[in-house]
Every structure is written in structure tokens, then in C-alpha cells.
């Protein structure tokens, strides 16, 4: 039964990846302290263009892009330490969106797509995925249509970083199959974007109405089916990595409070009723971290195999649950302060509530895992 299906437990981490992690930790810590995070909460785009330019200059946007297209070809697994570090410092940028969009092109696009867009991404162009048109990540169909004469009809629900995206990878029905198409920002009408109010104020997303956009036949990704499946799984992995970082940060905030706040004459961290659940946060974070680096190890440039699918889904299920727990207890353990907007604990709870619905919640992934592992 499961015997062979959960056997792959590889975790490899090269010296090069260790250096990436070190540099990412330092960068995110320096550029994204909590004051910087809060200063961006009400900003239009949710991130600093200067910091994005620095990330591009460091080569981060090209890390998973093959050398022939201007990247450093270190593989998608090497983005995991970057994204975990961003999550740890709540550094929100279009990095995940862009990485996923470029992966979709790499895995499903034509030579022309890759040759044109991947070098641009390495140089800082922004892309994003437009997949969802209902609340259901498990939906196997989309209400967005690409007609026979190649006109799009439909609205996508939660398109991350849409306001700053240069290009969109959009899923649509076309001649009886679901395809991915490449739409550029200049093809959208001026009323296409409608900004959403999000529970995580560090994030930005729009509804995007693609109706009326006319495409050329070469806008369709030739290998759409594989790219769609792989993008969703890699999306689950990257959001799991971000969530794992945020869980570690939530834990730091809780530990700092438990080791400084005195009630009834004692530091409150000495109470087992607070200490033991805090250990549970640590254990949840530790497991999530093991899964994201396992998944980073088994996810390659090829079409994702079953081991990789299991790894990505387990990573997302574990990371989501761990952050929900840490975010929730983080509020409670701060007492009255935890109920205020001023207390940083709210940032992590809101992150938890956001991240659980990125690329499928825990239950969605466990349902698919059950099909993979129990039948």
C-alpha cells in the first residue's frame, strides 16, 4: 500500500543553497524589519520598488531560470530558502507570483514564450498566475472561456500582484480542454482590474476581467496540461515555504513576550499552559521546514513525478496547519495586547488566514494525498 509511496525521504542541501539561505536571511532581516513591514501595509503595491530592484540585482528572479534564458539555473528548489526567509520577515513582493508564472512558461510554454519572457523575468519583469474563478482550488473546470476565434471571456478571482504584473498566465476552456494562455498587461481594458481588500495587509491581489481580450494562437502554452498541474503544486510548495518562515517569526514574537511579560509575579513563559503549546508551535514549524526542504529536493525541472506531488502537498498541509496554530495562539498568549492592531501578533494571524487558501488548503491537499496513498 503506502509502502513504496511515502518512501522517498530525501533532503539534500548544497553549499551553494546554504549560501543562498544565509544571504537571504541577512537581506530580508535588514530590509524588512517590522517597522518597514508596517510602513507598507497601506501602500498601493505593498512593496518597495527599491527592494525589488535589489532582489533582481542579486539574481533572485533568475535563480530557477535556465542559463540559456539569462538565469542561473539553480532549479526551483533553490527558491525555497529565499521564500522561507521572505516569509520570516513578512517581506511581500511579487516574487512568488513571478516565479510561478515563469515556471509555467518554462514547463509549458513555447520556445518563443521562453526566449522572450524568461530573460525579462530575470531582469525584473513581473508575472502572475490567474487560475481561480471560484472559492474552490479543487475545481477541475473554469468558467473562463477562450472562444474558437481566440477571444477570452471571464473573470479571475484572486490574481496576486495583478496591478503590477507585466504578464498573466490565465487558465481557460478552449475546444473542450483547459489551456493556459499568456496575456500581457497592455492587452487588458482600463477597467479590467478591481482591487480586493485582503485579510493579509502585506499582500495585494485583484479580480481581473479578461473578457474581450483577443489573443493570437501562439498565446496558448503548448504544454498547458503539465504546466497547470506543476504550477499548482509548486505554488503549494512556495506558499508552504513562505508560511514556514512566518511560523518561525510568529514563534519568535510569542517567545519574546513569554520571556518578558510578568503576571502573578512570574514570567508567563514559566506557566506550562503557555510553555507546552509554544513547544507545539516549534514542533509544527520544524515539521513544516523538513517538508519544504524535502520537497525542494525532489522537485526538479522535469514534469513533477508522484514523489514530488506527495512532497508538495504534504508541505502545504503541514505548513498551513502549523501557521494557523501559531497565529491563533500568538494572539491569545498576548492577552489584551493581542487583541490590538498595534500588537504584531495580528500580522501573523492574518498571514495564516491568507496563506491557507493559497494553492489549496490543508484539507484539499489531504484529500488528494488520500487518493495517492490509500487507494
Amino acid at each position, binding site marked *: 500500500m503506502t509502502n513504496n509511496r511515502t518512501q522517498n*525521504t530525501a533532503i539534500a542541501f548544497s553549499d551553494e543553497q546554504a549560501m543562498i539561505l544565509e544571504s537571504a536571511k541577512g537581506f530580508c532581516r535588514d530590509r524588512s524589519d517590522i517597522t518597514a513591514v508596517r510602513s507598507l501595509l497601506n501602500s498601493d503595491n505593498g512593496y518597495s520598488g527599491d527592494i525589488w530592484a535589489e532582489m533582481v540585482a542579486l539574481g533572485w528572479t533568475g535563480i530557477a531560470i535556465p542559463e540559456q534564458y539569462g538565469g542561473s539555473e539553480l532549479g526551483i528548489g533553490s527558491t525555497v530558502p529565499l521564500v522561507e526567509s521572505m516569509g520570516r520577515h513578512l517581506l511581500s513582493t511579487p516574487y512568488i507570483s513571478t516565479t510561478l508564472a515563469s515556471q509555467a512558461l518554462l514547463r509549458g510554454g513555447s520556445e518563443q514564450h521562453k526566449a522572450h519572457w524568461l530573460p525579462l523575468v530575470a531582469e525584473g519583469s513581473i508575472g502572475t498566475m490567474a487560475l481561480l474563478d471560484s472559492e474552490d482550488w479543487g475545481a477541475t473546470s473554469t468558467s473562463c472561456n477562450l472562444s474558437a476565434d481566440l477571444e477570452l471571456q471571464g473573470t479571475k478571482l484572486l490574481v496576486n500582484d495583478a496591478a503590477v504584473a507585466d504578464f498573466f498566465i490565465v487558465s481557460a476552456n478552449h475546444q473542450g480542454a483547459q489551456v493556459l494562455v499568456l496575456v500581457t498587461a497592455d492587452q487588458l481594458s482600463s477597467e479590467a482590474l478591481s482591487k480586493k481588500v485582503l485579510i493579509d495587509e502585506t499582500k495585494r491581489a485583484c479580480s481581473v476581467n479578461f473578457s474581450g481580450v483577443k489573443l493570437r494562437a501562439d498565446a496558448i502554452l503548448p504544454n498547458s496540461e503539465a504546466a497547470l498541474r506543476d504550477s499548482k503544486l509548486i505554488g503549494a510548495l512556495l506558499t508552504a515555504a513562505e508560511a514556514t518562515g512566518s511560523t518561525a517569526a510568529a514563534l519568535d514574537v510569542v517567545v519574546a513576550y513569554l520571556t518578558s511579560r510578568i503576571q502573578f509575579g512570574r514570567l508567563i513563559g514559566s506557566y506550562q499552559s503557555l*510553555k507546552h503549546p509554544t*513547544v507545539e508551535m516549534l514542533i509544527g514549524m520544524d515539521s513544516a521546514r*523538513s517538508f519544504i526542504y524535502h520537497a525542494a529536493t525532489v522537485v526538479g525541472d522535469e514534469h513533477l513525478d508522484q514523489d514530488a506531488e506527495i512532497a508538495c502537498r504534504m508541505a502545504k498541509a503541514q505548513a498551513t496547519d502549523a501557521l494557523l496554530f501559531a497565529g491563533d495562539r500568538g494572539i491569545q498568549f498576548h492577552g489584551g495586547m493581542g487583541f490590538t492592531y498595534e500588537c504584531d501578533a495580528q500580522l501573523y494571524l492574518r498571514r495564516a488566514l491568507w496563506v491557507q487558501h493559497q494553492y489549496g488548503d490543508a484539507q484539499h491537499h489531504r484529500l488528494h494525498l488520500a487518493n495517492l496513498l490509500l487507494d
Partner: protein
Amino acid sequence: MSNELQELRAEVVDWIKHNKPADPGFLLPQTFMEVGSERVLDFLREWQHKVWSSGYLGMAWPEQYGGRGLSPDHQNIVDAEMKLARVPICFNVIGLGWAGPLILDKGTDYEREKYLKGILNAEDIWCQGFSEPNHGSDLGSIQTKAERDGSDYVVNGSKIWTTMGNYAKYMILLARTASQTERKYNGLSFFLAPMDAEGISTQPIKKLTGEYGFTETFFTDARIPADCLMGEEGQGWRIAMQTLQYERGAEAGAAGGISILSIVMNDLLNMAKDLEREGQPLLKDPVTRENLVKFLIEEKALTLANKRIAIPALCADYPNSLSLSGKLRSTEFYRRMRQYALTLQGTQGSFYVGDDDAIDGGFWQRAYMNNFSTTIGGGTSQVQANIVGEHVLGLPKD
């Protein structure tokens, strides 16, 4: 893997095929803490002797003490195959994994000559006397006294949870030789005590499973020869802590042999595959599937933790987290997983060992209840959580 090791693997697989004992008609222990009757003892003694005399135990120990002078890898390969084939356990665990490696590492030539071979061939069973009634996990509070009197030490007090205390020839004993020390740990000394000394008696403890395996051990003016002292007076705590390090496997000095039957999710799924709920196969029930996947994720996380722990760059923020939380994570996982197995059994979960309708002879009933020895013994889960909170996260003590 080298050719030599590959050949060894093939050899041991073949050996197991021809030597794995048939079902003896009574339940065999899942761990060494469940040796509760003479017939089980005799069976396991014969089995361990056979494993040793065939060259598959103590493989990395020196030849002059009954070993084969090979590498830990040799032993590990043999153990892995034995585990996979679910052969009976090598039950003399305190000897093989604690006392033996200690004597090999720190003992005198006389002690090595006297003790080691009997540990491997199962003639001399060893037990451990650390815990005391009322002190549970807190070894610093040990009260059993050993007072020097001429060429003897006179021991008074009692120990509890002595695994196989009633069958053991020797005990590794932690006792207090000085009561007035600055730190409570400094007054402790470590002995290799003969269990047949006058004044030592044992009382078997009936466990919640209805079976035996532990004793309480009483010392009433028991005289043990002074040369039983390991190291010097006052070094007992340090030696005891050192002893705990050997268990980590053949690399750390243990003789090897499997001490515990591994019971994993795959066993649970095999057990559940023919069960039904609401007239449908249990494994089609969505709630059950969700729960099973949660357990599968948790089981895999345990394995992955053991991989990640070897990569310091991925453990930088809390370097000792995975090692200090290991016992808590794994023993609590197995407790819940085994409890769920009984939930899944439906009404058959209400039968017990001895009933024909109990699934696998009550295997899961025993597995679940006995698992408490791991969530309680060696520091309860609650103490473990304190340790992780204080030593990993830096939270204040109680």
C-alpha cells in the same frame, strides 16, 4: 555500498529465511519491557544466542570479547534486515545497548573479560536501576544509599521499573554514596551490581496490560563487593549520562540487535484494509481517510527530521530543537496512532488478548497500552515539553 556489505546483506536475508522462528503459539513481546514469563524468557534467550552464535550480534565488538571486530555498518545492515523481516527482538537490551558499551568503553580488562561475552550470548541478563519510587524522571533526587563498609558497599533503598529485574544477573545501579554535596548529582555513584547478592529482592509489577515485565527492586542491607564500583565515587551521574549515549546505535558502541518491533502506518493500513463502516470499506470513508493522511504526514515528518538534523544549515535558528524534541514527537505520535488503530477496529477493538475475535491476537491493544512506557519512561512527555521549552526556546523554568 561495498561488495562486502552487499554480500553480507544477501547472506543475512538468506539466514533469516532459514532461521526465523515459527510462531511459538504464545505472544512474543513487542519491546524488551514485556518479557513477563519464563517461557517467553527461554524463547528469547535461545533466539538471541542463535543470532549471536551465527555471527549477527556484537559484530563491531572485539573478537576477544565475543564480537567479530567488524564495522558498525556491518551490524546496521544486519539489524535493518532483521527489522524488516520482523524476527523476534534481541531482548538483553540493557546489556547490549547500555552496560556492554560502557564496559567496553570505560571498563577495566577484568570487567570486559567478566561481563561482555555473557551479554552477547544471553547467559547474563542485565537490568537497570536508575528510577526510584516517587522520583520518576528526576534522577537527581535518588535516595538509595550505598555505604562503604570494608571490602563491600552496603546498599539500602529501592528501585522501580526494573525491566527483567527478576531474571537479571547484573544491574547497572545508580546510588548515593554521599548525602552532603553542593550539587545533588555529585553524590551519586555507579555500580555493576550482582543481583544474587543477599539482601536484594524483586517484586514483579503487573502492568495495565495485565502482563509483566518490570519489577520493583528492594535493597535491604545488601552487600555488594566494592570492586563493583564503576569509576570513582561521585562520578555516577556523569557515567549514567554517558551510558545513555550508547543507545544511539552501533556507531555509538551498542552491540546491536533489534530491541523493539517497529509498528508503522503501513501495519495500521494493512490491519484496516478489510474493515467496514456503514456497510462500506473503512478505507473509503472520507473522515477516516483524512485522519489516516494526517498520521501519514506525521510519520513522514519523523523520518524527514532525522534527515534534516544532519544538515546544520537547515537547523540554524534552533540547533538542538530536533534532537531534544525527538522523543516527544515520536512517542506521542505512536501513542495516538495506536489508539486510532483500536478506534478503527470497531467492535473488534473491544476484545482483548486471549479472545479469538481480537484482531491479530490483541496486537494493537498491547501496542497501544504498552506505548505509555515510552511516553512516561525516560522522562514523561510533559517533562520533555518542559525541556524543549526551556533548552530550545529559552522559556523560563517553572
